[in-house]
């Protein structure tokens, strides 16, 4: 997964509430809850950076949490993919 690029899916409505995000897809009637960590990761799924680059960016920003960041990012992006809120493409 680390070399793949996550793209947030179209068609989700987003509401941010106190630093957390609730996504809703009218097409699939699926709701996805993102806690504050997952919300931050979601915002980095911009179709520009690979999963590995997102991990490095967050490690730079939060050096005190280096040990857990990779697991958090991979877990969160897998959750997004499972809920069809993110698609992964291979880096060019």
């Amino acid at each position, binding site marked *: 997964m680390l070399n793949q690029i996550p793209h947030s899916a179209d068609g989700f409505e987003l509401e941010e509430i106190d630093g957390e995000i609730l996504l*809703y897809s009218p097409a699939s009637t699926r709701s996805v809850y993102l806690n504050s960590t997952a919300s931050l990761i979601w915002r980095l799924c911009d179709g520009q950076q690979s999963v590995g680059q997102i991990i490095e960016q967050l490690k730079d920003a939060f050096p005190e949490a280096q040990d857990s960041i990779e697991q958090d990012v991979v877990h969160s992006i897998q959750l997004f993919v499972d809920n069809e809120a993110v698609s992964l493409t291979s880096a060019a």
Partner: protein
Amino acid sequence: MANSAVEATVTFDGHKVSIEYSEGEGEGEGEIKPLIEFLFGDLPVEQIATNEATFVIERPTGQDNWQLHRNQSKLFSGKDLNGLGNTLGGEVLFTLIENNQSGMAIHAGLVSTKDSSILLPADSGSGKSSVTTWLLTQGWYYHTDELVIINLQNGALKAFTRPLNIKSHGLAPIGEIFDLNSHHGELRASNMVTMIPHRLVNPSYREEIPPLSAIVFPHYSKDSEPGIQKISGAEAGLELMRSNVIARNLPGHGFSDVTRLVRRLPAYRLHYQHFDDLPSLFKQVNL
């Protein structure tokens, strides 16, 4: 006396259904009118022209089976009048809300004190009716154990007030807080559900519903640790979207309305094993 057709109407939040039945001689005479009153007697009568559907209750001559139809569809056939009532209650509710566009229809219980209400959204089997019943024993006013409409324009609440519906597996615990035996003749029990008139649990009843002050998502489980936790607005929104039963009728499926609601109300997730857990848990969060 010859059989004669009777039509009853049931209305809720701008929608109406009719129930046709025959009241004639023989066994079963006079049983349907009390059943309809038992099920729907607390719903305010509204003057509505359009009929959403007509339900027909029959007991064909020479048979001992009750039958319930909607159009040509047979919804129930059996000897158990209370089973018929359980099916009728569910079908009428669904029909009354399926075209509702005035508000969010939330699968939830609703109780109130003097000046505020608590919404109790939950899936079937989560202990929603049981915790609602317990709250009545503590003096809360009953509004519903099943469905609440929250008006999109003004936030006003409408409750589908019906008898408390306690599923078979929840009946023994209810017996610990409500004397089922002494009220046996006033209950309506079928294989799946026992329907308890809410006034037997708390005789005080009022139609007016004060504004919401909190949302509590109840989860009964004999295995989970009892507790009550405040949850975030986004978590509450996720849970509430799951209970938003006719979302398809609403602009944007009511997503922005749900999030507007959870932004302004505290929400809690309640886990309980026994009714004994509940006093201290509700006290913890000043409810």
